């Protein structure tokens, strides 16, 4: 009965990096100074890209593969523990 017509539908699968390695867009890189960090997690809360997680040492860890370097995390950090540093060419 079935001819087996391929029903080709625009169904997409959830994937990290759906638009590629967006870390390549970055001009500045956020770097956490763990000495200043008080683990308030506001950087995590405000990061639009959701690239901040808790690292093995309990401090914020940034996934640079996808971090777009917007600097929102640095802007909201209450202790100025995050610095934006120019990416090398």
């Amino acid at each position, binding site marked *: *009965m*079935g*001819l*087996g*017509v*391929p*029903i*080709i*539908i*625009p*169904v*997409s*699968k*959830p994937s990290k990096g759906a638009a590629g390695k967006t870390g390549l867009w970055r001009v500045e890189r956020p770097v956490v100074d763990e000495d200043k960090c008080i683990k308030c997690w506001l950087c995590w809360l405000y990061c639009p890209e959701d690239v901040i997680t808790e690292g093995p040492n309990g401090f914020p860890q940034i996934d640079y593969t996808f971090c777009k370097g917007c600097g929102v995390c640095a802007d909201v950090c209450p202790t100025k523990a995050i610095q934006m540093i120019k990416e090398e060419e």
Partner: protein
Amino acid sequence: MAVEGTWEIITGNHAAAIAAKLARVKVVPAYPITPQTTIVEYIASFIESGHMDAEYIRVESEHSAMAAAIGASAAGVRAFTATASQGLLLMSEVLHWAAGSRLPIGMAVVNRAVGPPWNIHVDHQDTMSQRDTGWLQVYISSNQEVLDTILMMYKVAEHPDVLLPFMVCLDGFVLSHTYMPVNIPRQEEVDEFLPEYSPPHWKLDPENPITFGNLALPDEYQEMRWSMDLSMRRALDLIEDVAEEFFQKFGRYHGGATWKYKVEDADYIIVTAGTMASEAEVAVDELREEGMKVGLLKVRAFRPFPHRDVAEVLQDRKGVVIIDRSIAFSSGGPIGIEVRSSLYNRSGSPPIANYVTGLGGRDITYEDIARMTKDGIGRITSDRLRRPYYWYKLKPEYEKIELSEEVRL
């Protein structure tokens, strides 16, 4: 096959509403427009009186009616709505969306002219102008056929090879508001014929987090449209198979993608659709009385268009008379255009006289059909077939202009 079920004398709209109930559709978004309105009124009363188990959404427009039907079908249930004319045109954007989402939504469209000026009477301009939306379209000639075809088309549309929405097109007032005896099949038998819809391809479901319809780049898009086209073509066979299955179960056959009347020995064939085809049947008998060997090819499915079937019937005839109830401005009748492409590149392609008529409810009787047929045959046999199409039943003063030498194409 013994006919079971009960007989009732009802309108085409009532038949459409009963079909939706028998198909156990679960969501019905509804918006009124003449001459469709009584369909959604009947459904409202079925639901409120507890005779039908469905959600009724009193939407604020036809665009929303179709969008809600899309949402319901995407969530995995059988959805139905009905509209006409301006309502169908307002839906246009989401008609494409329904088909592109491969959602087998069912819709009754009561054919009505398009404004301005306001006109609530039949022609096929509304549905024919939506021919490329990816919807299956079947044109109907009787109230029984309305009911039966809605049931059959759900089965075709939901087939895993098809998964496209369908519209069953019935002529405004001529069917929608005219009483005819209709056999209402028993629910249990319909249930056996048309099981519950369960989407085989995708649905919106928290258990399955997929994104549907995000950006597709040129490298991906074209195959999706090809797949729709292939499904549409595949539906041709299925319309035939399902009609056969329906006949086995219910003892009624209205034709598949086409329906043929006295074509075997015919020299000339009339091609038309909708209730004009019922008139054409009478015209065929009349013309045969007069000694003309004429037959009728009724186009039921306009989408998918049965090119092979049409070509096989028309090939090697002395001539073909095609009668359309809508105008593709400067190009003729939509059926005329399709039939030409069925025949082109084939041997034995007959001459074609295409007539555009019956717009805005101008009455077309079997006498009119006989007259057009004779006019067509006259042109064909006396080498006066100069134009791709002719207007029929214009007022005499305008017909004079239309037929003057200055007007050419």
